[in-house]
């Protein structure tokens, strides 16, 4: 297994800690004038998403994690697994709820997502930055308010609930920013 020494540490480096894939966010070298150097490392556990800190004596090694980000098409959810496909090789991947828990409400069949693979298995899914979804439920009243001064909750076809302007009606398609979970505009 490949390994990295602390002198190869930099932001974005993927390594294994306690068997889990992690990515370095920040690496700071502590080099006293007369003393042992250390690396202060802030990193993200790519499975849990938690940000952690550890201090490594310089010269220590960590195992490299076989982690890649790849663009996959979301196919369908069979109630237990979410299925994705590489549109070029047609290789299919399936993932359990944990990897999509926070983002499943933005996933629409056929959409391209960034999927992080660890040892060939999906561990996290990043939906497109903007998705187009249909409003399936919202308060129909309050017509005529086009100034956008207020808002109302709307349930979208994936189950997500976002605040939309009062003029948005059931059956309309809207564009939503998935990072912020915010309405952007009506879709044509």
């Amino acid at each position, binding site marked *: 297994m490949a390994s990295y020494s602390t*002198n190869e540490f930099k932001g974005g480096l993927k390594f294994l800690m306690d068997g889990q894939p992690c990515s370095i966010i920040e690496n*700071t*070298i*502590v*080099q*006293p*004038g*007369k*003393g*042992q*150097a*250390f690396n*202060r490392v802030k990193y993200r556990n790519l499975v849990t998403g938690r940000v*952690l*800190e*550890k*201090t*490594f*004596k310089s*010269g*220590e090694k960590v195992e490299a994690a076989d982690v890649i980000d790849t663009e996959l098409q979301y196919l369908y959810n069979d109630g237990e697994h979410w299925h994705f496909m590489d549109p070029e090789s047609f290789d299919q991947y399936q993932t359990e709820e944990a990897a999509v828990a926070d983002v499943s409400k933005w996933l629409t069949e056929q959409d391209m997502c960034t999927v992080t693979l660890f040892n060939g298995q999906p561990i996290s899914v990043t939906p497109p930055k903007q998705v187009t979804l249909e409003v399936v439920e919202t308060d129909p009243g309050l017509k005529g308010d086009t100034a956008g001064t207020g808002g109302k909750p709307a349930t979208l076809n994936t189950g997500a609930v976002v605040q939309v302007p009062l003029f948005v009606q059931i059956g309309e398609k809207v564009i939503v920013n998935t990072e912020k979970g915010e309405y952007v505009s009506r879709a044509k």
Partner: protein
Amino acid sequence: MTVSSDVSVAETLKKRSQLLKTLRAFFYARSVTEVETPILSSAAVPDVHLHSLSTQVRIPGEAEKQSFYLHTSPEYPMKRLLCNGSGDIFYLGKVFRDGDLSPRHQVEFTMLEWYRLGFSMFDLIDEVIGLLQTVLNKQCKVERLSYREAFQAYADIEDIFTATAAECRACLARFKVPEVLGVEEDDKALWEQLVLTEVIESRLGRDGITVLYHYPAREAALAQICVEDSMQAERFEVFVNGMELANGYHELADSETYQYRFEASLQQRAECGLPAVPLDKRLLQALAQTPLPDCSGVALGVDRLFALQQGLGDIRQGMAFGLRDV
């Protein structure tokens, strides 16, 4: 300065130029002679934590190019000058340390190093404080603590000289320092260093200048051991805003002790799997002929001083170009 606009580049250059002028004026006013020592040396510092850059030099008459090292500080040639009767001297210029790159480090950086004849460690501490107050332009609070007192005041460790590795680890846990990997459980010296760097140092010089003195004898480097307590060395460091700015010694005088400390460092290098380096025989010869006159010396990081003076977060912001810009 690559991160700033053009206007502030010019301003920063002027302010830096002014700082160099202020530093030189400080020493000229005290009749300390500026010296230029060679950047290249056929010998290298054996200290296990300092990494010298090296280069190949073509010398007429020699079939093979010869290895030379870039100095990590002007200490050895300055000491040869002191042995030769130079009197008080200072060096203001570039030095090189391989592998050091962070908001507080550059591989190539500017060092101010000076030696004062007849100065005790405490005399030199006073002079460093005077210089810092001149540059930072304030009569700021000055805190003088022995190494032992700093562990009492900032880490609740009563006597660090007799504390165990376990006590140091417990201290790190108490201050919620993130887990440390790669240090043996019973490596007292390293756990002690971690308490210093992770718990204590960041809180030193928060509203002024903090001087730590009487470092442990095992970290004496080339400082004298205290006459009253052989556990302690006549070595000090100066901190402002949690950052180490200067490192000074009441200097060792005799050739044999230099030889002994150099060889201990070489031994340590071998234990760490680091290549041996040629020792500075000319320095040892000079000291054998005439011991170093009684003096104290200190090295100060000028880029750090400038960053503090200007409130910069990264020393590179105060340099015309950093390593990544050349």
